[in-house]
């Protein structure tokens, strides 16, 4: 019976193919969107893994770039039991780099993908207190410095205080090449705002969110951005025991209303919550598409069955029971669901590959086996549910009603 049901799909190939397309598109949608969601989670996860401390910044600011806090609080925070290191940071959106502003860079790019990529890669200035940061255990940029064999150069030290020296990401060394087109390397100059900076090192974290930072001394950054001498955006705090991050959060938030304490796990969890809500919305949209696919399959199966009523009559007169007819038609819709699922997953894998090829250093679409299995299951379930009514209808004909039916 299994082979018979399978071959019945080929008796009306065009109709079967149309039903297959109708169901594989929602599968493509669900797998593609979930892969994107997975890629976004991965992106944040990659970033969070590298930042193990806690960031203190002004309450209700989405990012340290918009934060402004009292620099004197650093000493108070150091007194909290368990605190090991406190490092002051000054963050702002970077002024035009090589005389190219973020807007010009985005608009000037040729393709839409490039414009989007340039927008996501907008440079940010991080001015760090070099002495304090060099004492950190989990200093992200120091650790991400390229090896000398890869022209990594060196990281900032005390001798760089107040000087126009910058550590650049490898990505930016390629995106802002020298006038002769060669990638920027340590020793080269780069224009940031109205000042020329010497590049002293290159780093690479491979995180889309971290590899956009121009790292320099805090005094240099304040001078570049014409900020007050004590301007501070955030403190990066390390505890002696990283498990005590939550304790620190409670103490800080109870003592200073204006300070928000953001552990990276917390950021990851919040992001996970947001992504969960986005996933629900995406699934609702895809659910509609599945509904349309189900209607398509139901229609296909009904049409197919109405054309085959006398054939079903022949089966009944040859001793096939109602239940066996029900099984046959359900099997056909099950097969449609399986093939549609496979086609949809195949298209989705190909689509993700193409998207990843164009996005290159940007967000990755990651179709995991679990996502593909979910897509397959949804397709099979939709196929079977859609086939139930036609199957039930076919199984209710008496042998003579069916034999005498004129399609």
């Amino acid at each position: 019976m299994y082979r018979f049901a399978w071959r019945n799909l080929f008796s009306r190939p065009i109709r079967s193919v149309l039903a297959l397309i109708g169901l594989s598109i929602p599968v493509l949608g669900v797998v593609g969107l979930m892969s994107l969601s997975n890629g976004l989670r991965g992106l944040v996860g990659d970033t969070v893994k590298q930042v193990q401390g806690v960031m203190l910044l002004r309450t209700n600011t989405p990012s340290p770039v918009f934060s402004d806090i009292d620099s004197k609080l650093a000493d108070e925070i150091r007194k909290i039991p368990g605190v090991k290191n406190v490092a002051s940071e000054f963050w702002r959106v970077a002024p035009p780099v090589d005389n190219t502003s973020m807007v010009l860079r985005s608009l000037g790019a040729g393709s839409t993908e490039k414009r989007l990529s340039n927008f996501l890669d907008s440079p940010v200035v991080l001015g760090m207190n070099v002495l304090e940061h060099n004492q950190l255990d989990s200093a992200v940029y120091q650790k991400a410095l390229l090896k000398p064999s890869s022209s990594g150069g060196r990281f900032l030290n005390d001798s760089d205080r107040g000087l126009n020296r910058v550590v650049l990401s490898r990505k930016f060394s390629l995106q802002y090449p020298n006038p002769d087109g060669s990638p920027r390397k340590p020793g080269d100059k780069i224009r940031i705002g109205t000042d020329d900076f010497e590049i002293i090192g290159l780093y690479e974290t491979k995180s889309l969110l971290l590899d956009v930072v121009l790292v320099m001394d805090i005094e240099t950054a304040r001078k570049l951005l014409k900020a007050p001498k004590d301007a501070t955006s955030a403190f990066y705090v390390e505890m002696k025991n990283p498990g005590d991050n939550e304790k620190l959060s409670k103490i800080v938030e109870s003592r200073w209303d204006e300070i928000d304490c953001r552990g990276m796990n917390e950021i990851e969890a919040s992001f996970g919550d947001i992504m969960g809500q986005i996933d629900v919305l995406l699934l609702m949209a895809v659910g509609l598409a599945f509904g349309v696919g189900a209607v398509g399959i139901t229609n296909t199966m009904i049409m197919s069955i109405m054309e085959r009523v006398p054939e079903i009559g022949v089966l009944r007169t040859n001793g096939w029971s109602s239940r066996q007819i029900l099984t046959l038609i359900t099997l056909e819709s099950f097969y449609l669901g399986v093939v549609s699922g496979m086609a949809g997953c195949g298209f989705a894998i190909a689509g993700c590959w193409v998207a990843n090829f164009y996005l290159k250093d940007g967000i990755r679409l990651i179709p995991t086996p679990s996502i593909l299995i979910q897509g397959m299951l949804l397709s099979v379930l939709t196929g079977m549910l859609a086939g139930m009514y036609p199957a039930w209808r076919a199984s209710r004909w008496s042998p003579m009603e069916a034999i005498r039916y004129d399609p």
Partner: protein
Amino acid sequence: MSMIETHDVTKSYRSGEGVMEILHGVSLSIPAGQCAFIVGPSGSGKSTLLHLIGAMDQPTKGRVVIDGQDLTKMTEPQKDLFRRDKIGIIFQAFNLVGNLTALENVLVPFLPRGITPELRDRAKAMLTKVGLGHRLTHRPIQMSGGEQQRVAIARALVKNPQVVLADEPTGQLDTRTGEDVFRILRELQRELGTTLVVVTHDRRFIQPQDLVLEIEDGLLKK
């Protein structure tokens, strides 16, 4: 001993707001191994009677008894099993399954239970008997009307049924092909000892030893 008995069988259908009675109290008896012809003009109720005998339809009144089993007391699943095991049916329009080969069409009654090598051999042997041993893998569209009807005969007989019912089996065939098909049908009926009931307009195939049941306006004349 009677293989087929009907007792005062009436069959009526709803037609619009009225009821149309097709059979009016038909009683008959057909012995086992007999070849019986149900003849009569169009619309006289011949096919309806055949369908009742084949457990494909339910009489409005009366009883249909096959091999001692009262069909009117059977449940639907019991009737399915009865048709599967005891009845072979041949239709005027051949009614083969289009996307199956000749061999697979003959195996249709066994498909839900799975095809064993023994069943496959039996189906091949039956197709060889009807002269289609060389057409096993051909589909209906690749065969002539006469060949298709021979596949239908093989399908009806492959399960070695007690009763074979043929509804105008030569109705869509030319004279010579019809004669060939009927000759094969009768040979196999004799060989297998099956009870054969044929509904037909065509009295050419009736032989002296056959039982002839003539129906007119839903009544059995003799």
